[in-house]
């Protein structure tokens, strides 16, 4: 009887001790407060700070470099004269023409130019050579059968394949640009083989002075 009583006293003391310990590690007696949400300012609307080379003044185009660039050991550096690392700088009075040339196409998971597209690429090169003040952006696209990050890089490799061939054919690299869109801008969203074939493409975007006349190749 007495032993049980002492045990209960000991137990009570232990209980009190535990409660005290417990209180120390929590904010209040058993109430857990939710911390204020250190939320983000979702206002991504703010204009970008003066960064990015889009703010450089537009330079007039240098005359076309018919001889072409010799190319680096690591692949042709498609670049401009002033800063080979700058994106293509399109003069303000230029306009974009998307439907002058049809697209080239690529095999699945490949960035190699196909033999049947070589003639088209040669036509593009000829046009650019004959119009030394025109500029060209090659867009690289993929079908959806790859992961998004992989497709972005594959699309860029495709665009570079085309641009390298154009440079090899004598177009000055400073007039050539590349841009990958991965799988983001498909021609067709159908889940068919035909659609996927169409989506694996390199598109030619021509930039020319607004008043110019475009001679569609025959």
């Amino acid at each position: 009887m007495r032993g049980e009583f002492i045990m209960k006293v000991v137990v009570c003391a232990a209980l009190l001790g535990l409660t005290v310990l417990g209180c120390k590690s929590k904010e209040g007696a058993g109430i857990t407060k939710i911390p204020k949400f250190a939320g983000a300012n979702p206002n991504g609307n703010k204009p970008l700070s003066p960064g990015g080379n889009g703010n450089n003044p537009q330079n007039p185009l240098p005359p076309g470099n018919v001889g072409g660039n010799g190319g680096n050991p690591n692949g042709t550096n498609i670049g401009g004269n002033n800063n080979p690392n700058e994106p293509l700088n399109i003069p303000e009075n230029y306009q974009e023409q998307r439907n002058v040339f049809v697209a080239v196409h690529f095999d699945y998971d490949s960035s190699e130019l196909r033999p049947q597209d070589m003639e088209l690429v040669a036509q593009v090169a000829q046009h650019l050579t004959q119009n030394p003040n025109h500029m060209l952006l090659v867009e690289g696209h993929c079908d959806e059968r790859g992961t998004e990050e992989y497709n972005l890089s594959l699309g860029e490799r495709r665009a570079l394949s085309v641009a390298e061939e154009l440079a090899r054919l004598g177009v000055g690299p400073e007039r050539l640009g590349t841009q990958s869109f991965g799988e983001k801008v498909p021609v067709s969203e159908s889940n068919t083989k035909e659609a996927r074939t169409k989506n694996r493409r390199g598109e030619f975007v021509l930039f020319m002075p607004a008043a110019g006349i475009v001679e569609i190749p025959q």
Partner: protein
Amino acid sequence: MRFFLGLLITIVFFSSTTHLKAGVPGSGGNLQVVGEARNKLIPIALMGYSGEVASVLKFDLEVMGCKIVPEAEASFILKGAVEGAVKGALMDKAGNFGFNRKYAGGVLRDQAHALSDDVIKALTGKPGVAQTRVLFKMKTGKRSEEVFLSDFDGHKPVALTNDKTLVGSPKWSPDNSEVYYTLWLKRGGIENTTVLRQNMKTGARDVMARYRGLNTGGVLSPQGFLAMILSKGGSPDVYVAPSNWEFMKNLKGEGLNRITATKEEESGVSWSPNGQWLCFATRARGKRMLVKVAAQGGNMIRVPTNGVLNPSEPSWSPDGKWIAFTSQMGGFNVCVVPSQGGEAKVIASGEGPTWAPNSRNLIFTRRGVNKRGLAIVDVPTKQVKMLPAFAGSASQPAWGK
């Protein structure tokens, strides 16, 4: 003295009638702590909850490796109510006491998330992830995508951008004070990929890279080095910018450390948590594989992913032990391999996994019939929970703190 003793006796009689043992600090009460290497779902019964709180508790606990079962099948019971605020008492099926808490502040969802985390902490000794957030990309129009932020369960989505152009690969900085992402930014007549840094408090944005060609994959190391995929050298390669990088002072890229110079495409850079290694996918030597390179540069060391093909999009776990990645064999599979390489395990169907802070959960993308959505898997148990569908196609999630 007698009164004091009497008071103590009364307290003892009104408390739990079982024998009390000193609880493990942080685990609460005297519940048996479940081993963290657990690969079996912990069966828990929820009693007294309904509506939104019940569904939040169920989702959270199932994400974190539990299974909600009837009382008769449960090893643990969470009993409570929602009386203005969420209350919860945790015990095991023998009635051993875990904790008894009441929550305040926030909305009911937040309180339920906090309770879920407390349950996991009590049962495993490890912190939960129910109060974390994720970034992802969502399609908002035909040719329009924005970076979004939401709770880990997809609730309270908020757009972090409003540029009405394309975006990609949002990533958290290690302390989550900044996010990095790719934006197809139109300047000077050209829509060029640009790596941007956005401050999460102020919304202020800075251009990290806008070179000729592809600029993507921006991800910051704990030491402040920014890894990126740039194609200005003629092919998409891995570059590292030093800490305190100012793009405007490096328009020709002189300050960049070029990590790869292959003719093949590199993609999907992930830092090791100690910032000493870069892991990424490459097709150097004609075969698609994962490799790692020392942060300051060096040889590409293959990370074998035996048993699966075509790995990409690696994500290194916060505890350093694992690399999650996408394998493409017909469909897409979320896989995990030990970080030094070895046998890869398929965990779930899906792609683009990133680790939760607990190095146990992954959030990833699943392709649906019309659009993509997000899902979470508990790697040891392989239990998958889909997030509720978003308005537009959602993908490329990045799990934050």
